[in-house]
């Protein structure tokens, strides 16, 4: 089955391209201290707002810092935020979805009403409100993005559990006396992993977009820590003189989100159709 997956995946050009983009980002984040040509927070007031040149490939910002170096370090931030925030969403979503689908009845009704209520809020409003109270910091952002984006995964996992719990192998497990916890986590959950994986890959893209929007508004990752979003804030402040501050970080966000989306859809298309609804 795994061999079939790889065969289908490697034939899908977009998926492979997406995978390459994501892999590149990992390498860049990992090697940031060696790849970055300058110290990302080194201020040099003699080099303020220089356009791209051979010394500073992507120009410098309003404090004379090298934009390329800041973007390379920024890749680390978005990778971190994407993975941790999505991890939180996956944990909450999977647990709630599993309980909801497995137990049904009152538990299901309460959890699903809660999902409905959460879906009524414009997510960005909710995130903004919480962030402002919690003080913006990278950890708070990850927690808040994660805890406001689990609803889709809950519905997905619930649907999987409802159909899986009626299968014969679950009845067999119950017949030999397996506990609820064992049935949920050992027998059903592995079979629902495929769709969770796809949702998580797409979720990382969403989390990175949200983080950059928050940082852009000044309530995300705080300077001097470089993030693609807060470089764009500087771009907006200097919109009439320094186009490079706006152009390149956005391009990086676009490529990253595109990469995760292509990878996620590629995985979905390559999975065994029996595992995906």
């Amino acid at each position: 089955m795994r061999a079939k997956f790889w065969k289908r995946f490697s034939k899908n050009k977009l998926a492979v391209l997406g995978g390459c983009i994501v892999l590149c980002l990992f390498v860049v984040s990992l090697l940031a201290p060696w790849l970055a040509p300058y110290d990302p927070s080194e201020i040099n007031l003699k080099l303020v707002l220089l356009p791209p040149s051979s010394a500073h490939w992507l120009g410098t910002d309003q404090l004379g810092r090298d934009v390329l170096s800041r973007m390379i370090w920024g890749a680390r931030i978005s990778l971190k935020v994407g993975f941790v925030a999505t991890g939180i969403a996956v944990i909450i979503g999977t647990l709630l979805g599993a309980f909801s689908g497995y137990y049904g009845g009152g538990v299901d009704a309460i959890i699903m009403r809660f999902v409905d209520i959460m879906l009524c809020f414009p997510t960005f409003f909710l995130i903004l409100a919480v962030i402002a109270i919690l003080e913006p910091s990278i950890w708070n952002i990850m927690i808040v993005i994660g805890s406001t984006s689990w609803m889709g995964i809950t519905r997905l996992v619930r649907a999987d559990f409802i159909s899986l719990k009626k299968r014969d192998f679950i009845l067999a497990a119950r017949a030999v006396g397996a506990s609820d916890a064992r049935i949920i986590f050992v027998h059903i959950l592995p079979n629902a992993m495929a769709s969770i994986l796809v949702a998580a890959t797409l979720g990382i893209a969403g989390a990175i977009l949200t983080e950059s929007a928050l940082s852009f508004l000044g309530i995300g990752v705080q300077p001097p820590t470089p993030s693609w979003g807060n470089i764009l804030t500087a771009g907006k402040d200097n919109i009439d003189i320094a186009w490079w501050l706006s152009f390149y970080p956005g391009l990086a966000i676009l490529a990253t989100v595109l990469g995760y989306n292509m990878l996620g859809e590629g995985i979905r298309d390559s999975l065994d159709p029996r595992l995906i609804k």
Partner: protein
Amino acid sequence: MIPLLIGITVVCFAVMHLAPGSPTDMQTQMNPKASLEAKQRLRQMYELDKPLHQQYLSWIKKLARLDLGKSFSPDHRPVADKILERLPITIVLNILSMGLIILTAIPIGVLSAVYQDTFFDRLTSVFVFVGFAVPTFWLALLLMILFGVNLGWLPISGIRSLNYEYLPAGAALVDLIKHLILPVLLSAFGGLAGLSRYMRANMLEVIRQDYIMTARAKGLAEVVVVYKHALRNALLPVITILGLSVPGLIGGSVIFETIFAIPGMGQLFYMSVMARDYPVVMGILFIGAVLTLLGNLIADVSYALADPRIRVS
């Protein structure tokens, strides 16, 4: 509907009150002379010293009378007034962009389904894929640089020019439209990709149905088959999607109104969040959720009106 509404008020309240920090911190931390007593007095004034459930009950009682309390900001105006004066521009902007989404996404979706696997279909697929990934605030910056700074065709902030009051009616209207072009275009862009993709999938599914084959078999022109028989049925589910896109549009208004300095509800929300103006933030969070609920309700009702199959007899 009612349980949802109650749930919404609980979440609004919980979000604002269970988190650490207090609005009085904001007013006193700038002032080192503020004594503990003064802080206490402030807390009493805002009823923050009472138990949480009492605060919630008094908030919800006022809410039932559409009283959202008074703003913590120095002007101490009623929250409802502050929101109401800014709500119309946000709603107008969102309706305009919703209209633009419908007018462009539906034809794109239909055409790429009818001409499946042609150059046009591939082109729109690429467009949709990129559209999903583009950070719209970045696109806003690029368009501001292009049309506002380099070409100087469009203004990049506010909804009126400084000399607005002195312009004749016609010129004033043109002025307003010029200010609205970029925000509406960008806010529509966010929803465009999703809806056109959805429309395409719907259309492809409908075209495969038996009754479409029947229509073709009895010799109807392809145009009639596609635009009369198939389109009608493919359009139905779109109503629901439009209802579901309301929270996204409203949420997006924070970003656009902040970038373009548009004095709407989104900008008020951003400023209130920055100032920790709890009553305003709670009020807008609540109104945003209610607008979403309303959008879904309208979608459900119009779906029932449009589709005879789900009408309850």
